[in-house]
């Protein structure tokens, strides 16, 4: 293996030496005239100043386009930066309730606005979606600020009997998401949980 390396080194060195000992080349006698003829035939449009001004125009146009793109992207990012989580609250948070229980659910987001709101009742393996509201404006990512919902107040009715809930412990789970690009475009999320007990008479008691 070592001898092969040495052989290749020797061949390389010999080739390099031969390469570096090259004789001068004699150009044909009319070579210079031929070059000058070619130059005289060269397209005048390819000549200097005109091309330079074109290059400057293209460069300025390119720079302006790049600047516009940077401003647009910057605006897009700044407009969609979201600093605050959405908020959520449940009114009439009383301890003993009757068979049908009405609440006021309030939610909001000061930055990007609300995306959706979901309410579940969970009892052991049973998970029932009792409310889903979508507030996302139509048109994908292109919408005006007036289409955004920043705060809502929704009545929430929980009828334990109608939902098929049994007596015992249960959980009211409320999830709200905003329109920001956080969490891989899913938006920031706030969760509110309320534990309660369903009595034999189907009344609820939060604890």
């Amino acid at each position: 293996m070592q001898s092969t390396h040495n052989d290749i080194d020797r061949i390389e060195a010999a080739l390099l030496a031969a390469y570096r000992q090259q004789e001068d080349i004699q150009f044909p006698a009319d070579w210079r005239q031929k070059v000058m003829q070619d130059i005289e035939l060269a397209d005048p449009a390819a000549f200097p100043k005109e091309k330079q001004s074109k290059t400057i125009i293209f460069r300025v146009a390119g720079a302006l386009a790049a600047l516009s793109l940077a401003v647009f992207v910057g605006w897009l990012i700044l407009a969609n930066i979201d600093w605050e989580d959405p908020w959520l609250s449940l009114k009439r948070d009383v301890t003993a309730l009757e068979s049908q229980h009405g609440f006021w659910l309030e939610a909001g987001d000061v930055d990007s606005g609300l995306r959706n709101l979901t309410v579940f009742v969970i009892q052991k393996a049973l998970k029932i979606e009792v409310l889903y509201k979508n507030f996302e404006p139509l048109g994908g990512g292109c919408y005006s600020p007036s289409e955004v919902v920043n705060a809502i107040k929704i009545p929430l009715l929980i009828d334990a009997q109608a939902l098929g809930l049994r007596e015992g412990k249960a959980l009211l789970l409320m999830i709200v998401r905003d329109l920001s690009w956080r969490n891989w475009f899913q938006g920031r999320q706030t969760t509110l949980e309320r534990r309660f007990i369903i009595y034999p008479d189907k009344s609820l008691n939060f604890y």
Partner: protein
Amino acid sequence: MNFPNNIPEDATVIRSILDGNINSFEILISRYQDHVSRIVRSHIPRQYVPEVAQDTFVQAYQSLGRFAGTGLFKHWLSKIAVRCCYDFWRKYYQRNEKQVFPLPDDYRNWVDHLSSNQSSEGDAERVEARNLLQWALGQLSAAERTVLTLTYLNGYSVAEAAELMGWSVIRIKVQSHRARKKLRKILAGILP
């Protein structure tokens, strides 16, 4: 065109050409013909040197308006010469897809000669060596060949080669390393 000074500077000649005195270009040709010839000869087989040198001067003339004048005209012309050589090989390989240069028939004698530690400084051996080098370089791509010629055969630094080719230093480093490795592998193949 008569210049007030007997030996006008490049900048004066260039200004004169840009003002429409095409014949002034002949001054640049006579001044830099040897320089361009040396560069082209180091990349291209002898029979094609006049043709590629001619291309170099025609391209220089057509691009003269873009010569900023901040550096030396000679350096600017060198870059054009190297790129003309690279273009030559690209076109040459496209035309001759398979075997660019045949393996010389008498290469075995040359290798044996070298293995037996005999001097190989005769003209015939030199020609054999050059033919063998042409064959080996012919196995490389146009880019690898041009970069290897600059860095390994002509001894330019990576930064100088990058400047001449108008490529990044990293690209030159990668091409040069890859080409050298390939060349050694090719040469290993001709060992007895």
